[in-house]
């Protein structure tokens, strides 16, 4: 067993932990830009995993997917978000509705919950347990961020985290889905973020603020 295999195996084994760390940091982050950076790190970790898998299972598709992840999630989307931030010239605060400490604790709780949740399946499916857990954790974390952060951009980031979660789930299957589908999903994602960016601008223009919790004209 060569060194690289070892590295790959290590990467796979420990990547979940890295993901959790990014999540906790996101929970405690105060500035949007921090979250964006964390997001791209998160994506990078995923890319690393995929590369590892690709190397392990020698599948070209996996390499393609990895490159996609790097281009779209690690580079394109963060860049797009930074552009938006710059041109918005709005304050960088994430406007959390929970204090940092609370957020971190909740996040930790969600991570534990996810382990509890996947337990039954991991057994039956002979899956890498902590990856699946990480997937769920990312899902929950994304939802949590969207619910607890009032800034429109944070919603976007939360959504991205959430989708990362789904993506990790795909990884957990250790089989890659048909390439077309993957590409389609990525494309959709990109479009989605782009659109949301568009709406962020519109919101800024029509409401002079970006606090989505203040968008409450339509109710009942």
């Amino acid at each position: 067993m060569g060194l690289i295999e070892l590295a790959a195996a290590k990467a796979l084994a420990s990547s979940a932990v890295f993901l959790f760390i990014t999540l906790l940091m996101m929970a405690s982050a105060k500035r949007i830009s921090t979250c964006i950076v964390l997001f791209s790190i998160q994506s990078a970790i995923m890319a690393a995993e995929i590369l590892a898998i690709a190397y392990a299972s020698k599948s070209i598709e996996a390499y393609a997917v990895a490159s996609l992840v790097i281009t779209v999630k690690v580079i394109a989307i963060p860049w797009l978000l930074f552009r938006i931030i710059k041109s918005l010239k709005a304050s960088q605060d994430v406007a959390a509705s929970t204090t940092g400490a609370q957020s971190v604790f909740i996040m930790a709780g969600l991570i534990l919950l996810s382990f509890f949740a996947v337990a039954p399946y991991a057994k039956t499916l002979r899956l890498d347990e902590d990856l699946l857990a990480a997937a769920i954790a990312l899902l929950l974390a994304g939802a949590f961020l969207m619910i607890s952060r009032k800034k429109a951009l944070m919603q976007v980031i939360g959504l991205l985290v959430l989708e990362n979660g789904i993506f990790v789930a795909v990884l957990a299957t250790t089989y890659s889905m048909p390439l077309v589908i993957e590409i389609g999903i990525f494309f959709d994602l990109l479009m989605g973020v782009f659109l949301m960016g568009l709406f962020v601008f519109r919101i800024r223009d029509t409401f002079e603020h970006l606090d989505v919790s203040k968008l409450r004209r339509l109710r009942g």
Partner: protein
Amino acid sequence: MMQIAFNSFLAALLMIPAITLLCRRDSRVRALPSWLLLLTLLAGTIVAGFSFWRGGRLALDLSWVTPFPFALTVDRLSAFFLLLICVVGAPVVLFSTAYVERHYSPTKADWLWVLLPLFLLSMVLVVIASTAFAFLFGWELMTLFSAALILIDGDSERRRHNIFIYLMMMHASAAAVIASFFLFLPNASTLDFTSMRAAVAAMPMGLRSAIFLMSFVGFGTKAGIVPFHLWLPKAHPIAPSPVSALMSAVMLKTAIYGFVRFTFDFLGGGPAWWGYLVLLAGAVTGLLGILYALTEHDMKRLLAYSSVENIGIIYLGLGAALVLMANNSPAWATAALVAALLHALNHSLFKSLLFLGAGAISEATHTVDIEFMGGLLKRMKITGIVFLIGCCSIIGLPLLNGFVSEWVILRAFIAGSELTSLSCAILLPLMAGVLALIGGIAVAVFAKLYGVAFLGRPRSLQAEEATEVATAMQVAMALLAASCVIIGILPGIVLNPLTALASDLMHTAALPEAALSIAHTLPWVAVCIAVLIIVIAGFRRITRITATWACGLPALNGRMQYSSAAFSKPLRTVFSRVYEADRTVDVHYAQQPYFAKSITYRSVRTTSFEKSLYRPAVDMIVSLATRLRKLQTGNMQVYLLYIFLALVALLLWMRFA
């Protein structure tokens, strides 16, 4: 032959609206649709009569058109109610021909002539349907069309409120009816009447009772039994008079039809408590109905309440039938059923007569408030006389149709004393007392109505200037009055076919001969009284017209007569518990405290049911809704939270279920 007539009858009812819309432009043929409708109804009368007296069956199956089986069958029961519809419908249409053109602008008239046939058609559908789908189809349309007809008279705030209540309660009743049909489902493969009939045998008693209760509530609401009567006095009076006539006289009867269909035809009777329930409902409805009528001085609302009362009487008959059946005295049960059905027919005859009369009066005096009438008999002879006949029939005076049905019901009650079960033997005869009490109060009510509206001095200018209405109207009313008299003197003509009908509904051989003995007596009594009257009237009398004695004071005026409120006061005090009226007396003084400039007395009676039953229900729904509304906060993050929670909840459910 009859089959063809039957089909063309239905087709015609369907076509006439189209014809109306075609004819509206041309003034020469504007009247065509109404006369066509009249002819159609006469044809219908013949068809129904054939099937009612001869017992012939007619059938029409349209299932090939519709997604669900849609079959129409005329057996004796359906024929009876079809006859009822046509017999009442024809005079009403005749009346309308004159009424409409005086009251409505051409457009409104067109609306009426479009809607009226459809309304009739929907009622016909209900009574001749032989599948659940057809029945419900007609049932729902009946409500919609009647509401549309009510709207012709205008859409003021109050009217709309009443219509709203009407439609809501009808929708609820329809739901109950639908339920009572569908409860047959697992046992009856398809919802056509024959298979439903067949399925009952296999059903457990609980299910049957559920069906019975559902149909009791559903049809009861349509029929207007207390406490589901709320809509009736609100909806009937505000319709155009011919329509009120149809609603009160015919539409209510479709509910009776449905109830009879279910309880007697499908379920074939049940345990005694069904009967007790129906009896109770009948008694309460009858009493409260007539007591509420006593306080009214809006003529049409009074008549509406008296419809409630008569429905109560019909339910008394039905209840008696159920109880007697349950205590295996089938012959008398049949008699009671006959009585109930006969009263349904009678009520539709005299009630339509009275509502048409009310229409004629409101046309002559431009009011329906009897306090502003008076002395109309001198000014509108024919109307006055036929209206009198209507009043006499509705309070069940002998030699008129109302008496016959009440007589048979009373006989059935008395026959109840023969039953072995003690409770029945006590209860049924006492019910006769209830019926008598209802009758007694009815006498007071209609003495008041007729006395105040038609007799004495005119109580207002418009009453003084009232003139007789158009001939068509008079003829229409006269026809109804005549039928009242004929049935009253020769009840045999309807009693015998009804007996046949009832006995093959109940699968009983023959009626106790005593049950119909009245049919033999009445003609003789009629002859005897007629002779006496002729003899006495034969005497030569010298008469002189003088002024009414005014205790030596200068001439009296209309305001000095007993008003309708004054007339009913003694009885109202006796039953003051029922009314819980909230009265207001405000006096404006010229000089405190002696010289009152004006005294106004207002007594508003909102039925306690409205306060204690319906208001709370509505309020509950609305408050629940407003509370739910708060959940839609407008904050997107909360929305996300909902999704999130839904997901978590489902995951847990999945885990532990």
